[in-house]
């Protein structure tokens, strides 16, 4: 239909494949997110530490550079699995703040403005909606966590040679698995809170609160009950336990690896359940 005619005509062209439609949501979400200067600046700040790591890896593999500046290199500067574990901690902290900023703006505006029926009256399911919204966080957080982590690993592998790579290939797997689990848990938590708390600022605050309040409550439970299972309420410690095992690093959290995995699975399942309950075309008013 031509604009000048201004009469209604049906669309008769081709359609996109149904499987690809969940990718429409992240495209529009990113277009909106990048309009925020604060987010762009914070996103850039997330790469400072990986850049520092690149410098560290370069120097560790080129000690002569330090010597040429008159700095005694010694043995203290070397690339070990702990470097990648520290990388996980630091980047996880950045992703935590990034999620608190981005997560609440994903689902709550749709609920506040009653947009859900518009999504679901089309050939677009609730699973696709959740997958689409979640992919925004998964993609964004992946860019600042395991993606630069694997680049660091590749740089180190290229500088240290095949022997080092063969012996430490497991680090790449640990980086990917450890950070992906963190990203999935954080994304689901952010989406669930965004779906239940319609006010964006409150949802962001609540995401921070879940971690801080959980840590505080867990510590109190440990002290009162003289147990270590209270640490399961502290999601930071739960993730630390998993990462420590993945990077063969001693963990002093007092909780077992199995308990930590179960805790992560339970948190993810509860968040999914909350999301499925909330993300629907209409609200049942009792």
């Amino acid at each position, binding site marked *: 239909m031509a604009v000048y005619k201004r009469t*209604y005509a049906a669309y008769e062209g081709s*359609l996109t494949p149904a499987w690809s439609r969940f990718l429409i949501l992240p495209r529009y979400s990113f277009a909106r997110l990048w309009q925020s200067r604060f987010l762009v600046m914070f996103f850039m700040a997330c790469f400072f530490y990986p850049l520092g790591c690149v410098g560290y890896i370069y120097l560790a593999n080129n000690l002569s550079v330090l010597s040429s500046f008159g700095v005694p290199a010694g043995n203290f500067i070397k690339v070990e699995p702990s470097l990648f574990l520290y990388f996980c901690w630091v980047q996880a902290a950045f992703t935590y703040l990034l999620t608190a900023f981005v997560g609440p703006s994903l689902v709550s505006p749709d609920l506040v403005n*009653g947009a859900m029926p*518009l999504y679901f009256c089309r050939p677009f399911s609730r699973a696709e909606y959740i997958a689409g919204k979640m992919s925004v966080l998964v993609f964004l957080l992946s860019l600042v966590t395991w993606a630069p982590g694997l680049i660091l690993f590749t740089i180190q592998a290229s500088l240290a040679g095949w022997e080092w790579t063969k012996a430490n290939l497991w680090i790449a797997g640990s980086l990917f698995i450890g950070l992906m689990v963190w990203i999935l848990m954080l994304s689901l938590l952010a989406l669930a809170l965004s779906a239940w708390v319609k006010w964006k600022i409150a949802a962001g605050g609540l995401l921070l609160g879940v971690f801080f309040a959980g840590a505080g409550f867990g510590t109190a439970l440990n002290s009162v009950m003289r147990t270590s299972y209270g640490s399961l309420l502290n999601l930071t410690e739960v993730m630390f336990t998993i990462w420590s095992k993945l990077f063969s690093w001693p963990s002093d959290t007092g909780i077992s690896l199995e308990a930590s995995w179960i805790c992560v699975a339970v948190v993810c399942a509860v968040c999914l359940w909350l999301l499925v309950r909330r993300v629907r*075309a209409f609200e049942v008013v009792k």
Partner: protein
Amino acid sequence: MDPVIELAGLSVRFGNRDILHNLRVALSGRTIGLLGPNGAGKSTLIQTLLGFVPLSAGSANIFGHDIRQQTRELRALIGYMPENDSFIANMTAVSFVRMMGELAGLPHDAALERAHEVLFYVGLGEARYRLLGTYSLGMKQLAKLAQAIVHGPRLLILDEPTNGLDPPARLRMIRLIKEMKQTGSMHIVVCSHLLRDVEETCEEVLILKQGRIVHHANLEEERRANKRFVELETVGDEKDFAGALTALGCECVGTGLGRVKMVLPVEFELREIYRLAAERDLQLRRLNYRRDTLEDIFLKAMEA
């Protein structure tokens, strides 16, 4: 004509409460009005047809597709304009409509083109780059209509399309519905409690009351049938006049004081009445068609 919507014993239950009870009807009009008082189950019926609400019994088909088995295929054929505010506040109208088009399966370039076109069509062309959050209520209604037609649906469901509109905006909405009915190939369901809107736009009407169908009528047929009921007010010998009309096939009843009520046969031309009156030097003071308005139909249905 193949039915557009076919309900076969459709029932919906929320908890222990029957919301829709054993609805059986086949609707095939180009524009179908869904009427009923508040709480009659109109919106629930629409939500059921869209697959939002599960059926507790019976079945329903739209264009021959079962709403339970082929929900996804059906949703590709339907455009829905919800009753309540439904939009994304921090998006421009053109982005919003484009996104909705893409979600319906349009490629992004085609969706952008269609978004511009439908926004011009509904009258939001000049405001299409404004954020939806800044729109007035009437503009939001038009934006909702634009997103409902962007993908060229075969069935357009409008839930209270004139809700909260001022008279000019209401007229504009009614005109758009009429235009789409005439120029497009789509069927339109108008759900409203405003009888005038339905009367102006629909040719078939379904009236619900407490979750049950209380009346189903083809307004076009009723209008045609009403044209055959004529009431005359005369001065002169109306008995002879009525006899002459009866001889031409009319069913006439004299009600006294020069008044004659009659049912005209098919193919009867009104000029015959004037000719017979002129031949008998009878004065025709008034000629009325029976006007059984939708309001009459609705009130009768509510009393039933």
